[in-house]
């Protein structure tokens, strides 16, 4: 479970995230919706301990990410862009991460199988297509069989079968009791995958609700409700 409390982040004079609070619960897909540049990625980087909050805190099972004893077994994340060296094979990349996280070596072949990368595990990851790269990110996230998944724009740039694969994966993971937190700027995608929605605009929380409730607010259209929320808040 993720608890975000009064989270703020400045970059110089820019306030990227402004006093945001919410919870991400187990067994649920929580969509994180907002226009480009609204603070979604920054919030996720703060949760993962990559950036330090200016104020407030992001806790995972009660502790900040940097203090987790078994981080890979608590949270799996795929953040923006690729996070592997192009010259290393998928298997070696995963083996290195597994070693650092204290995960048994056999788990590497398991996640390669789960993500359908078994046949290309020995290939240099730099030769991967966008979809294969995304699968490698997911494989790394699943290494520790974590209770929480954090995915930043996971379907961006994927072809239809890739999108479907991610959608099914998200559903399966939540149904298995995991807390899944997935950001997107695609409203239709969120309507298909999410149970709950957190809407963020200009770094501020605009809504924390269910998909059904939000779409009712827009007279049955999630899109109308979204624009009502994100355009209503100015600076």
């Amino acid at each position, binding site marked *: 479970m993720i608890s975000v409390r009064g989270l703020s982040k400045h970059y110089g004079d820019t306030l990227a995230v402004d006093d945001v609070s919410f919870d991400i619960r187990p067994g649920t897909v929580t969509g994180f919706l907002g226009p480009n540049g609204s603070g979604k990625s920054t919030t996720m980087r703060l949760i993962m301990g990559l*950036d330090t909050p200016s104020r407030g805190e992001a806790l995972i099972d009660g502790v900040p990410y*940097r203090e987790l004893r*078994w981080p890979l077994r608590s949270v799996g994340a795929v953040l923006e862009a690729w*996070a592997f*060296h192009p010259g290393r094979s998928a298997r070696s990349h995963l083996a*290195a*991460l597994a*070693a650092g*996280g*204290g995960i048994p070596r056999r788990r590497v072949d398991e996640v390669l199988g789960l993500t359908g990368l078994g046949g290309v595990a020995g290939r240099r990851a730099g030769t991967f297509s966008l979809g294969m790269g995304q699968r490698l990110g997911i494989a790394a996230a699943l290494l520790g069989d974590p209770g929480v998944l954090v995915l930043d724009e996971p379907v961006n740039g994927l072809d239809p079968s890739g999108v479907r694969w991610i959608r099914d994966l998200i559903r399966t993971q939540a149904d298995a009791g995991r807390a899944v937190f997935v950001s997107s700027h695609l409203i239709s995608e969120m309507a298909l995958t999410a149970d709950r929605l957190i809407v963020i605009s200009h770094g501020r929380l605009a809504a924390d609700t269910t998909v059904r409730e939000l779409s009712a607010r827009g007279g049955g259209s999630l899109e109308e409700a979204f624009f009502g929320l994100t355009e209503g808040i100015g600076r």
Partner: protein
Amino acid sequence: MSGYGFRDVARMEWIKLRTLRSTTWVLAAGMCVTVALGVVAGYNTRSVTGDPTSNMLAGIAFGQVITGVLGVLTMTSEYSSGLIRSTLAAVPRRPLVLWAKAAVFGAVTMVLGEITAFASFGLGIAVLRSSVPHPALSDGSVLRAVAMTGAYLALVGLTGLGIGAIVRHSAAAVALLVGGLFVLPVVAGAAAVGAGKFMPELIAGNSLAAVKPVSGFSWSPWLELGITALYPAVLLAAGGWLLVRRDA
């Protein structure tokens, strides 16, 4: 179940180091060129009163660039590729990452550095002209010169790693390393007589690898080795401090 620790992180860095084909090749090729340069310098030694040991170790002028640049890339390639996000997700206790990198890269370059230095000496002796006095490893100061030369290659590697941790951008960090090694001694030497005793690149040739004393380098090679080690120690400490405080 006390959580991950240094051993796990060192294992991670060891896997990273040996699974990049480019690193393996550059290290192997760099060692061969370093040895070859030493052998050529040994063969060309004609002076009867000179220091053939020092000549046979001349290849480190090149070898230090190899270990230094690879040290830089060990850190900066994490940032340029985005791998740093995966690394810090697995190991959010950030200082552990840098200490493990330093331990693994330092140990590997120390072993390879010693192999390179002793190979340079062994092959150099084989081609040394009969008119030139032949040094022997049974002579304590010869053994010391060869062993310190190997250690020097590791220390420059760690210096590169420290610069990489501070600067994070490959090109800028490599420029700083090379400038610090080769340009700084020229500038400092022009500004202050005796500054050479503090410049690693000059220390290596005139003290660490030397059997016969060189003017201007009256300090013990052990003291000079300590001065050389101070650079990576300070840079790595600063790099570790910054790694914790900066956004990744």
